[in-house]
């Protein structure tokens, strides 16, 4: 009976030891993150990535997020996208990962995919500041003012005294030919930043 118990305990202990050897100890991961941050602060992005390689685990949200960020900083946009996409698979509700993914996508000028990510954020969080503002800006730059307007309206409704929001709202109206409405927003923008020279050349503002 005792022999059986000791044997079972030995098997159990061996299995635990084997498992511990197969997975990276928590301390090693924390140490790797610490070294990675130190390299990042010194702007050594490739080294910051290398510090994480020995402890990399494809199922770790944290490692994928960090590698997404570091690869973006290291101008390895395609790799950055791959890591961020793994994050989103692991944590589909993560807004931070979706926001992170927009950086390398924007650098590669994959604007349709950027739009998809912002719209995904808005499905979770319809009044998300960044997503609404950026979607308004992208559509404004595409001269699609009708598409830009609802996004900037949501933004300005929540943050009516924000220069970027009020300024863009003005330009969207101005570009749509609604110059009187635009003027109202430009005047509000000038209350927030009286030093702005954005509207100096507009005859409507003289």
């Amino acid at each position: 009976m005792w022999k059986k118990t000791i044997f079972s305990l030995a098997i159990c202990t061996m299995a635990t030891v084997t498992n511990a050897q197969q997975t990276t100890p928590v301390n090693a991961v924390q140490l790797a993150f610490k070294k990675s941050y130190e390299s990042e602060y010194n702007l050594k992005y490739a080294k910051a990535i290398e510090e994480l390689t020995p402890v990399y685990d494809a199922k770790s949200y944290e490692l994928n997020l960090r590698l997404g960020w570091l690869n973006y900083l290291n101008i390895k946009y395609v790799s950055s996208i791959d890591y961020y996409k793994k994050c989103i698979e692991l944590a589909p509700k993560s807004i931070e990962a979706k926001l992170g993914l927009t950086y390398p996508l924007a650098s590669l000028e994959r604007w349709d995919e950027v739009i998809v990510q912002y719209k995904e954020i808005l499905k979770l969080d319809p009044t998300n500041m960044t997503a609404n503002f950026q979607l308004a800006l992208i559509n404004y730059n595409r001269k699609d003012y009708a598409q830009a307007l609802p996004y900037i309206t949501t933004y300005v409704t929540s943050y009516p005294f924000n220069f970027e929001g009020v300024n863009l709202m003005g330009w969207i109206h101005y570009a749509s030919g609604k110059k009187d409405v635009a003027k109202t927003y430009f005047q509000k923008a000038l209350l927030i930043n009286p030093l702005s020279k954005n509207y100096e050349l507009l005859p409507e503002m003289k």
Partner: protein
Amino acid sequence: MEILNKIFFITLIFFGATYFVFSQSEINLREAFKKSYDAEYQLKYQKAIDELTEVYDASSYELNLRLGWLNYKNNRWNESVTYYKKAIAKMPMSIEAKLGIVNALAGLDKWDEIIAMYRSILKIDPYHAIANYRLALIYYNRSDFGNSWKYLKNYINVYPFDFDGNSLAGWIKYSVGKKEEAIVFFRKALLVNPYDTSFNKVVGTNK
């Protein structure tokens, strides 16, 4: 014909005057805001308030918001709350005004009103990061860990790699006796900030 000329002339005078008054009042308002910002940057909050007094219009969202902020900075919390409430009445969907008023309410220790304000933000924006995190923190400090977790869950679901979120998640779990779950969150927090020492007594100094 003479009557028509007179009407035309009167109309011209009227619109010209209206345009001039509107433009002049806009210029005065802008100048007052500029002077107010200048005074604020020099930490002269009372002067920053005074600069706006002459142009004050109770129906202006912008003036009430700015006076709410400046009175808060000037430690006039009751006045600050009054101005912010006017701004909120003018723009009920404004999150920035609601975030502003909580600063003054916190100065007055009016925590139930702060909770109401954060909840009203969540009605507009259910995943608002600040509102969810701070509600979780207030309930944690009240030892109401059930409500605290309810709000924090929303926060860490969308920002899983955030130090404050993981730290508070760990402390909530620790407080309800779920030490192993607490350690998981503390270890995540330590990945975000490896220099933190606030979990040493739980996680151990060798982490």
